[in-house]
């Protein structure tokens, strides 16, 4: 797995919002990379910075008040944070494409599906004729499994159901064969049966077109089912990263553990759910120490004063917790936990 080349590398990314109530470091020093053809998941609770991360990659952080304040985003050997506006426009939609959570509002209600799809093509394929673009658009609509594609081109978004719109969004993202597709909670607004359709489609396309997918979600079930690797975020930071089977089987960070246990499983009934006490801290309200310390049952003095690094706990697994600061502690703690 690791021999696959990383095509997108996020290094020490920091994105902050400069608001009237002070500076909010929505994304604080995160590192991860997306490999060719893989599906990487990002999970975390609401407000932990998932969307801001993806918008930072696209260079679409609403500004003002948002601003990338540090780090780099390498696509190939180019740092996207350093690109000019014009160069960045060539990357968007062409090299890196994105679909959003709300299929209802992500399409412009006043233009036809065809118009919007062809626009996406013609922006990057300047030498294409309208006809070519149209054919390509129809081809893409077919690809995502939509019926009667010719007529669909003339339809307006409101004439489509949520699931169909999300398919259109996917088609639109894929028209220019991007290397990376960022999907920010693409199914949250959809019903389960439709969600299942869309996820199946994305997985299928990922396999067929070999497009790397960065799938953002808060549903651990979706991650388990769709992703190869996962990044767990908490309050603007990555707290754990690794392959999905390992993380689900052997979560290391107390937050990840808590998260996994607190999800009610449909397959069997627990008497009582585990619950992580307290609330997610508001970004900007954290001063020092580990951000999870206040809710952590393993927290000790150091956790309150120092923020742990992201420790490499195996070749593929990283955790931001003092419990894993070094192997000794690690083994010590393992026994402690398992007992």
């Amino acid at each position: 797995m690791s021999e696959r080349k990383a095509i997108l590398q996020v290094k020490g990314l920091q994105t902050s919002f400069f608001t009237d109530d002070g500076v909010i470091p929505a994304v604080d020093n995160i590192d991860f990379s997306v490999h060719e053809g893989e599906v990487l998941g990002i999970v975390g609770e609401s407000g932990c910075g998932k969307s801001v991360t993806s918008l930072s990659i696209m260079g679409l952080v609403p500004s003002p008040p948002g601003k990338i304040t540090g780090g780099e985003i390498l696509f190939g050997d180019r740092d996207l944070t350093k690109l000019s506006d014009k160069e960045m426009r060539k990357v968007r939609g062409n090299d890196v494409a994105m679909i959003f959570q709300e299929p209802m509002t992500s399409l412009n209600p006043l233009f036809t599906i065809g118009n919007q799809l062809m626009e996406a093509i013609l922006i990057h394929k300047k030498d294409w004729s309208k006809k070519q673009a149209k054919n390509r658009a129809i081809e893409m609509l077919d690809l995502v499994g939509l019926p009667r594609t010719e007529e669909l081109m003339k339809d307006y978004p409101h004439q489509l159901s949520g699931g169909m719109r999300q398919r259109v969004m996917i088609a639109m993202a894929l028209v220019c064969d991007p290397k990376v597709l960022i999907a920010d909670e693409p199914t949250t607004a959809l019903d389960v049966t439709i969600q299942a359709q869309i996820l199946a489609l994305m997985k299928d396309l990922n396999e067929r077109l070999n497009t790397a997918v960065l799938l953002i979600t808060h549903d651990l079930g979706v991650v388990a089912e769709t992703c190869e690797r996962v990044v767990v975020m908490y309050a603007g930071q990555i707290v754990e990263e690794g392959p999905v089977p390992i993380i689900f089987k052997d979560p290391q960070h107390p937050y990840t553990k808590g998260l996994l246990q607190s999800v009610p499983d449909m397959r069997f009934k627990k008497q009582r759910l585990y619950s992580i006490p307290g609330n997610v801290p508001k970004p900007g309200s954290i001063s020092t120490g580990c951000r999870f310390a206040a809710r952590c049952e393993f927290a000790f003095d150091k956790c309150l004063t120092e923020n742990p690094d992201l420790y490499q706990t195996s070749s593929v697994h990283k955790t931001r917790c003092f419990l894993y600061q070094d192997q000794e502690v690690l083994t010590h703690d393992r026994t402690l936990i398992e007992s």
Partner: protein
Amino acid sequence: MAKMEPKSTNVAPQSDKVAGPWYEAWRSFKKSKVAVVGAGIVLFFIIVALIGPLIAPQGINEQALGNRLLKPSGQFWLGTDDFGRDILSRIIHGARISLWVGFFSVIGSVVVGSILGIVAGYYGKWIDTIISRVFDIMLAFPSILLAIAVVSVLGPSLQNALIAIAIINVPNFGRLIRSKVLSIKEEEYITSAKAIGMQDIRILFSHILPNSMAPVIVQGTLAIATAIIEAAALGFLGLGAQAPTPEWGKMLADARVNFINAPWTMFFPGLAIMLTVLGFNLMGDGMRDALDPRMKS
């Protein structure tokens, strides 16, 4: 059960200060430069209106026909009018009149408009139809013509101008409140109030009204601005305040005959109107941003 949640909460600072919605609004209002400037202007004119007679360099009706139409100078900062009266002093006194008309006409339209709007919005059915139609009819009139007609019926005077302005603004507030009531009626907390078994009247007064106040206050502030202009326009047409009241619009109208040879007699009253109105507009804008969370960025 204690296990469920540790005492530590990350919610809001533990200060005893109760940060209610009005307080929050006040805080964001304070942050807006525009709003503060606006409030400053308004406050300035209010103070001028209150203590006007104390600070005015001259009386308002002291005619000195020997001093007619003097240019602005050290003695008469803004010059004199064709009775030899000090324009600055008259403008200072005029603040009182304009603010008075602005405030009370708007209060009048808010009260009447709210009652009609609530009745229409809350009870619906044919009452709503009738009231809404009446509003439609009133709104289809060019408002200044309606005001002129009303003043013509009542006779030109400041008080009647005030009434006319109040009348033409009633449908604006009526509609606003009605739509507010209609939309708040659909809010979940109204359903939840019903779900606890609350009576309709109580829902109206304890939930719907207080929650429709914010836009009314904003609209009211902006309406004061318009009302001041409308009063001045009526004064300008000779249908508002009567001589020798130093109403700004009337001063402007009186100054028109001296348009060419004494432009200052016209310039300053107009400037006063514009500044006051600007103040209210700025303030209203700021309040809208503060009170309407949708507008917050």
